[in-house]
């Protein structure tokens, strides 16, 4: 175990101890206890930055299950480091924010922080694992903790619905990813991601290569809310706002991006990968921003905005993967700019989107509503929040002097470069990328402006708000202020960020290009009047016009009615699934005892009989049999006749007597087969049983006739004869192959060991006395049962105890 292993496990362990802290220090807001964990982790991971920036990587492995190639292996490189800093850094800020957001009196904070820390550990595990199976384990753990956090206010129906939806979709994708991982293991023979990357050239020809690629991408797309799996994210907004800021914008939804980045060296250069990642990404970017504009709830708007931004980053990873087609060269290094832009925007998005969620949380907290139709004119009451909102949403819109401007420009550069590509039939389709990207950016600009100006400017209507608005407490403002500070800081010092964080990550995503000239572009805010700048100006102008004229073109959204959305498709699938499984279950779970017995006997005959036949173990060898006397045959025939007679008797009395005949005949056989103890017991028991039957008949009606129709009787007959035949075959085969000697000679020194001459009695009373005692316990339990049933006096149809 290295330090990094402990860093992953630390939040998970802390999650277990947080509730205890609540018991130990009841006056403390648990957030103060929880915040130490991410701050500590953040400072540890920051200490790795210089070493990683100078090209080091840290790998370590703890053996777990050797036979399954399952090791707790970790790998800390540039890519992982960015994510660990986001997880722990944003995590610290979110916990700090939540201390003022979550009321100590009303909320169950022990649960909240336990889930949050559990998530933190799981997410660190995802980005640091080097073993596919361990990665999968942590991946699903993030889904579980996300489920728990979305359903935190579990008394609300919408919370439960959102939690279930996100869980079904992300875990479904996770299972698909698991299948992809198993295929990777089949191809490469190892579970280590780094080893798989090292042998990437040999994998391309394998027939499972493309299926594995698609399955892993489904996992990434569901987690990162890409079209058409994006529908879970808006419903996940039922979670408390700190959770939305943390899981559903800054970290968990980026796990899919991480997965794509991690596997780019393996799958990059493949046309399927290029088209799926960039195509789905760019369409999601457009669809998310288009849907965001029509939202009335601020959090829903942010959710669609997150979907759109994730799509943007996804498409950049896709476009950049073209650089891996056919070897590293000075020309193809141009395409790597897309990957650089993706990483840069990923960091920037976490800053401005985290801040925006916190700002919306503040508005919700201080005003009591997030509905855009009710909000307006808050600038007078919340000047600080307004300033922060302007900074973060202008950054999201891609305006200077904020970090979003820089990465948005690089995004335009990347899509314009894609237009020049000559790979993957991009000559035909390449032009779509800049066009869709530009249209998506116009919508992005529009919703960013709506977010700020509808909330803080415009008419103030006190009567529509629940509370009189006022500025948030300073504690809630600290975290967004820090994030907004970063937004501005990164704009002015982007190359420091690039040097310490982005370039090591570039080296791990594109190992063949490591440290090549031109891999790490110099970021500058001003690079002359080029096409990118013109595109940004166009976005701002058209976007502003679009916001002003919203009510004229709003009709466009009528073409996408609710009942034809993907969402309603999901609901239909869910209810159809429930209906179908209910129908299927009630088809065979009929409530008739006989049917259940048919299933049991059917499977028994099929499996045991089938094994017996197929394995050829039927051996019939009567040579070792004991001799037969005539009177023995007569008893056998009498017994067979008595048994067969039972189903045919019209009177139950006859049946009980025939059963008695069988029992007494068996007693005779016990005598013949040298078992006097058995014979005695059998005689006593059979007598009492017969008496019991007769006694019982006194209270019961004469038995009715069974169904006579062939349809009922034929399957009964077939199954019965089958069971008899199966028993005979098994018994004869056992008789024919004696695999072991009898162990009963061990008991023949019973006189010396147990002091008893009767071996059977010695076994029961001494050698296996404990069994006999338990047998007596069974008798005792049965006796209690009988006694209770006989004496219980509940009148028909109602319970006496209830009546009293």
């Amino acid at each position, binding site marked *: 175990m290295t330090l990094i292993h402990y860093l992953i496990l630390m939040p998970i362990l802390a999650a277990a101890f947080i509730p205890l802290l609540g018991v130990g220090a009841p006056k403390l807001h648990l957030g103060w206890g929880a915040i130490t964990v991410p701050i500590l982790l953040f400072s540890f991971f920051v200490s790795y930055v210089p070493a990683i920036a100078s090209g080091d990587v840290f790998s370590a492995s703890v053996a777990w299950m050797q036979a399954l190639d399952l090791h707790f292996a970790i790998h800390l490189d540039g890519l992982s480091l960015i994510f660990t800093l986001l997880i722990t850094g944003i995590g610290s800020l979110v916990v700090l924010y939540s201390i003022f957001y979550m009321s100590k009196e009303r909320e169950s904070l022990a649960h909240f922080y336990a889930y949050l820390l559990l998530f933190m550990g799981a997410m660190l595990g995802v980005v640091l694992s080097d073993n596919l199976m361990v990665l999968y384990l942590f991946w699903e753990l993030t889904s579980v903790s996300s489920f728990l956090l979305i359903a935190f206010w579990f008394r609300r129906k919408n919370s439960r619905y959102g939690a279930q939806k996100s869980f079904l979709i992300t875990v479904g994708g996770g299972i698909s990813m698991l299948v992809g991982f198993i295929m990777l293991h089949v191809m490469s023979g190892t579970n280590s991601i780094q080893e798989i990357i090292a042998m990437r050239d040999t994998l391309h020809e394998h027939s499972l290569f493309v299926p594995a690629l698609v399955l892993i991408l489904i996992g990434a797309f569901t987690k990162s809310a890409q079209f058409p799996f994006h529908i879970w994210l808006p419903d996940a907004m039922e979670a408390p706002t700190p959770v939305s800021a943390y899981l559903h914008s800054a970290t968990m939804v980026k796990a899919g991006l991480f997965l794509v980045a991690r596997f780019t060296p393996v799958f990059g250069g493949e046309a399927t990968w290029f088209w799926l990642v960039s195509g789905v990404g760019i369409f999601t970017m457009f669809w998310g921003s288009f849907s965001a504009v029509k939202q009335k709830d601020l959090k829903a708007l942010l959710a669609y905005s997150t979907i759109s931004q994730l799509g943007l980053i996804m498409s950049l990873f896709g476009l950049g993967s073209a650089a891996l087609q056919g070897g590293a060269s000075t020309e193809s290094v141009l395409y790597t700019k897309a990957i650089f832009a993706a990483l840069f925007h990923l960091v920037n998005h976490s800053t401005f989107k985290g801040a925006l969620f916190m700002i919306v949380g503040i508005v919700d907290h201080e005003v009591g509503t997030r509905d855009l139709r009710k909000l307006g004119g808050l600038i007078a009451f919340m000047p600080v929040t307004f300033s922060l909102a302007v900074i973060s949403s202008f950054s999201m819109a891609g305006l200077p002097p904020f970090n979003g401007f820089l990465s948005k420009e690089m995004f335009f550069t990347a899509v314009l470069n894609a237009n020049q590509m000559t790979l993957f039939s991009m000559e035909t389709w390449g032009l779509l990328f800049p066009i869709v990207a530009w249209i998506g950016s116009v919508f992005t600009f529009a919703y960013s402006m709506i977010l700020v100006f509808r909330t803080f400017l415009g008419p103030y209507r006190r009567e529509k708000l629940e509370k009189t608005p006022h500025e948030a407490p300073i504690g809630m403002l600290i975290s967004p202020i820090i994030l907004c500070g970063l937004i501005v800081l990164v704009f002015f010092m982007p190359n420091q960020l690039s040097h310490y964080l982005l370039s090591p990550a570039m080296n791990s995503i594109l190992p063949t290009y490591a440290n090549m000239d031109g891999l790490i572009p110099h970021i500058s805010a001003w690079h002359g009047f080029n096409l990118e700048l013109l595109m940004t100006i166009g976005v701002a102008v058209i976007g502003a016009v679009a916001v002003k004229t919203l009510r004229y073109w709003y009709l466009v959204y009528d073409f996408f009615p609710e009942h034809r959305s993907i969402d309603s498709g999901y609901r239909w699938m869910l209810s159809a699934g429930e209906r179908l499984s209910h129908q299927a279950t009630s088809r065979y779970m009929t409530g008739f005892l006989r049917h259940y017995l048919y299933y049991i006997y059917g499977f028994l005959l099929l499996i045991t009989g089938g094994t017996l036949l197929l394995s050829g173990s039927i051996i019939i060898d009567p040579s070792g049999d004991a001799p037969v006397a005539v009177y023995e045959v007569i008893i056998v025939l009498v017994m067979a006749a008595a048994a067969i007679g039972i189903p045919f008797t019209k009177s139950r009395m006859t049946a009980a007597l025939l059963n008695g005949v069988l029992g007494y005949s068996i007693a005779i056989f016990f005598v013949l087969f040298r078992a006097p103890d058995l014979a005695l017991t059998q005689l006593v028991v059979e007598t009492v049983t017969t008496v019991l039957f007769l006694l019982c008949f006194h209270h019961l009606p004469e038995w009715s006739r069974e169904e006579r129709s062939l349809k009922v009787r034929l399957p009964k007959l077939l199954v019965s004869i089958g069971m008899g035949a199966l028993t005979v075959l098994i018994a004869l085969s056992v008789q024919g192959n004696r695999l072991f000697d009898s162990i009963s000679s061990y008991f023949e020194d019973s006189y010396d060991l147990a002091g008893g001459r009767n071996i059977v009695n010695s076994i029961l009373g001494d050698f296996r006395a404990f069994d006999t005692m338990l047998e007596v316990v069974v*008798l005792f339990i049965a*006796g209690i049962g009988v006694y209770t049933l006989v004496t219980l006096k509940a009148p028909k149809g109602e319970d006496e105890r209830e009546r009293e």
Partner: protein
Amino acid sequence: METIIILLVGVLVSVATYLLLSKNVIRVVLGTALLSHAVHLLLLTMGGLKRGSVPILGDQPETYTDALPQALILTAIVISFAVTAFFLVLVFRTYQQTNTDNLHELKGADNE
């Protein structure tokens, strides 16, 4: 001898299964009783029949028949008696409570 007894066991198992599939509760209880008869015989047969003398140690050393199946069967007889007794009382009680001994009428409601 063993083969004949095994065939008899087969007949008993068939009849027991047929009775278990009935709709009348008493027939089902009879089926379980029959099934335990069959199993007892089967167990004894598996230990080998009529080899050696009664497993009671005498003064003369000699071979004894296999005592272990006998011990097992003794336990089984007692347990099956307990089960049969319990079943019978259960049937009696069920009839008192529901006024039917027909399993098809005792089937639960459609949903749960």
